[in-house]
């Protein structure tokens, strides 16, 4: 069982992206197919509304194709897409919360939470199931930000630099949040 199910070869990204920028529709389709499952899962961590997630993805991919000639070069398409998609999704979610609740109206950020659960399905032994359940319980207690950083770092393999960009933080605070979160998780696991 590979740790990163969705791992792929970064080295080809630069070429693929350039082809797409020059109007290669096959390259565009490949980019879509390579990353869409991952992006949908990332979206699900913020909202259970699959339609809303897909609307945002439609917007992001259409904009990429329409503005392809003007896009910056990248050698990490996953990062680029996650950043663009997160931007779009959070914008739409904030708008939605503003409309439906008073608290949301003045503090739209507070209603947006990152929630993902650790995978449990592939573990058969009872004792390890127990461990993972405990770990999940502990993971749930982490802050939304800590959870998202763990998700981006260990599951998606983004660099701290890239995570800092996505979350609009500086690299140092990403590092601090990560090390604090890991300290909590570890304490829990050895106990």
């Amino acid at each position: 069982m590979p740790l990163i199910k969705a791992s792929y070869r970064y080295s080809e990204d630069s070429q693929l992206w350039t082809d797409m920028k020059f109007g290669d529709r096959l390259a565009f389709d490949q980019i879509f197919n390579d990353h869409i499952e991952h992006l949908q899962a990332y979206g699900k961590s913020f909202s259970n509304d699959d339609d809303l997630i897909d609307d945002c993805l439609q917007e992001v991919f259409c904009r990429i194709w329409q503005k392809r000639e003007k896009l910056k070069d990248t050698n990490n398409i996953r990062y680029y897409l996650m950043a663009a998609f997160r931007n779009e999704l959070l914008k739409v979610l904030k708008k939605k919360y503003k409309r439906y609740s008073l608290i949301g109206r003045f503090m739209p950020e507070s209603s947006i939470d990152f929630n993902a659960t650790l995978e449990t399905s592939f573990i058969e032994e009872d004792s390890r199931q127990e461990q993972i359940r405990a770990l999940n319980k502990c993971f749930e207690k982490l802050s939304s930000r800590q959870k998202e950083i763990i998700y981006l770092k260990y599951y998606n393999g983004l660099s701290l630099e890239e995570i800092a960009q996505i979350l609009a933080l500086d690299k140092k605070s990403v590092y601090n949040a990560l090390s604090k979160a890991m300290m909590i998780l570890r304490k829990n696991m050895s106990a």
Partner: protein
Amino acid sequence: MKNKNNIYQKYQVEDFLVDESFIDWVNGRDSKVDWEEVIFSFPHLRPRSEEAKRILQKLNFDQEIDPDRISKLQQRINKQLEQSEHSKKEAHVVALHDRKTYYQYKAQRNTYWGWIASAAVLIVGIVGTWFWEYSEETAPVIKEVPYVTKTTKKGQKLTTRLSDGTIVTLNSVSQIHFEEIFNDTVRYVSLEGEAFFDVAKDVRPFRVKSNGTVTTALGTSFNIKQQKEKVSISLVTGKVGVNMVSKTGMKESTLLVPGEQVAVDVKDKISFVKGKFDVSDVLAWKRGVLSFNKSSNAEVWKELEKWYGVDLIIQNSNIKKQNWDYTGSFDNESLENVLESIGFVKGFKFEIKGDQVKIY
């Protein structure tokens, strides 16, 4: 190496957990540090690194996959992109009436309501701006890069220098498209028609994309000629690789050595032939030499139209029916001389009026 690795001697489990190169190593990606070696030279680290590894391997997330949902989304995207291609063409028709004159006209009719409306607009504007600023996002990731397109018409040729010092000579009815300043990783040019590239030496690969082919070079000179699906690439000096991708995703590639030429036909399938070529023949156009090599009559007419920027009208039906295999070259000759000499062999007369040429 050992000195450099000394910093890891006091590593605790927590330190391993947040070390980017250690995470890369556990996940099987390229790592900046040789962790095998570090742990080998400091065996006391092994239990700690093993524990960190175990924790990292548990941080896997649930991911549902719904192929139906994905294919629906893809259809929606394709549909929206198609529609926007259409609306682009129609968009120019809409905004004909001038907004300003419209409001002047309204204001004349009813000044009083005009004032109220203006005030209302102002208030809405101020409030709106506040909300808009409030909801404004952090800068989007999309940045613009300036591109340059150079085009030649019939009868024109153009020599241009790219930002890296590469010199491109563009034959008539051709187009190249490239970044004004090339980026750090690759020099990328797309081509329609025919051009000669004298590529400046550089660490960044130089790529030319032309109808399903990508030619990659480091510091060489080569000629590319594209006509519809057919592309021929002729290498003069250095070394180039040619990658071909068909519309159905089939891939082929080949390497050229100086004096070699590859003729590629890319539609749904890829077919290509490699062979030697005559440098003076292929590059004749660059020196102002119009040359034909076993050309059909249709090819001759088309070449003449492109070269001299004229329209040919063939009124002689005998000439139309003939099957030519014409070979000949003209060194900086006028259209009149060229037509005279071809006409003498093939048996036709001509009349030049401005850019219209009658063949009879």
